[in-house]
């Protein structure tokens, strides 16, 4: 096998779009199954009553991260060819804080608002409308924001490069961090009485 297939020309443009649709269906399905189409469940993450967001997100990250490591190691795919968003430290730090504030006010992130809307949540659709407006505002202000948007560029940078560790060691460290987080999540949930009636 010689991945990534699209980059190596094994599948074409049209097929990639059909693949996108299928991947999206699976993505939306798992988000809804875990309960992440519910604003109350998402918000509960930040009041310590339900750690589903953290648990699901970090399980997914760790699963894909370990998978990528093995696929690359056994030569199934070339990790070098996977697109890596360049790091811009300041706008990504500030962007994250702003995102977090918007997340707890609105109750959704971009993907989950779509899932909420698809299951009939009108507040989910309001959130999507808000996002479209926010993007438009950002676009209109872009000439003013451009300088900060491109500030502190660090290029394509991975954590193992930054800490100068072998990638396998970095994967191991992050898996340990995730496991510690899962253990702490259980502790936090058992200490805070759940007010969330959606909890199963």
């Amino acid at each position, binding site marked *: 096998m010689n*991945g990534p*297939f699209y*980059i190596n020309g094994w599948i074409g443009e049209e097929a990639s779009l059909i*693949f996108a*649709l299928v*991947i*999206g269906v699976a*993505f939306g399905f798992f*988000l*809804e*199954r875990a*309960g992440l*189409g519910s*604003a109350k469940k998402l918000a509960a*993450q*930040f009041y310590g009553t339900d750690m589903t967001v953290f*648990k699901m*997100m970090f399980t*997914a990250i760790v*699963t894909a991260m370990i998978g*990528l490591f093995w696929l690359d190691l056994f030569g199934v*795919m070339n990790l070098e060819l*996977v*697109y*890596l*968003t360049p*790091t811009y430290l300041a706008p990504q730090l500030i*962007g994250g*804080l*702003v*995102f*977090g*504030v918007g*997340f707890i*006010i609105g*109750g*959704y*992130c*971009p993907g*989950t608002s*779509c*899932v909420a*809307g698809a*299951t*009939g*949540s009108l*507040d989910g659709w*309001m*959130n999507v409308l*808000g*996002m479209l*407006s926010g993007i438009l505002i950002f676009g209109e202000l*872009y000439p003013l*924001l*451009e300088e900060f948007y491109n500030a502190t560029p*660090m290029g394509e940078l991975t954590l*193992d490069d*930054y800490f100068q560790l072998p*990638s396998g060691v970095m994967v191991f460290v992050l898996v340990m961090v995730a496991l510690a987080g899962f253990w702490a999540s259980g502790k936090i949930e058992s200490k805070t009485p759940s007010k969330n009636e959606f909890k*199963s």
Partner: protein
Amino acid sequence: MLRAILNKRENPDPYWNPYLCGIGLGLVLLITFLVMGRGIGASGAMTSMVAFGVDSITPSHAEANEFYKGYLGDGTVSPLKDWLVFEVLGVLIGGFISGLFAGRSSKKIEKGPNLTTSRRFLFAFIGGMIMAFGTKLARGCTSGQALTGGALMNAGSWVFMISLFAGAYLMAWFVRRLWI
């Protein structure tokens, strides 16, 4: 017809185990990397829609803006014929199917017990606006940065992820009346 489709059952199925769903989502992400050489996303599709909208109304205005231009391409293909637009279309379908079979699909408004519907709509809208702004500054959202970049051990994605949790936890106390 719509009422027949949107059938919320008295006792909807319980949610699946978050770790199990996480493994499922992680495998979906891994297959995407293997097949496409890129990860998943969500906010990028909405940006394509906005860029398409601006370009349809006032093409000269869109052309003069580097931000929109990045999503419009060279003009030979529609900005809506985009990988992420198709993926998000799938997300809507997948979420709908899951909710339907679990008996969770119905017209509803999710809000804290002390909030009126109109105020919930207002805050859902404002929250979306703020979040989108953060997303664009950071070059991605929870899908495109946190999940995708997280799995790639992308330094900027981990910074984004940590600061998004920090921002939400810091803000949570101030807006507790929205949810508790």
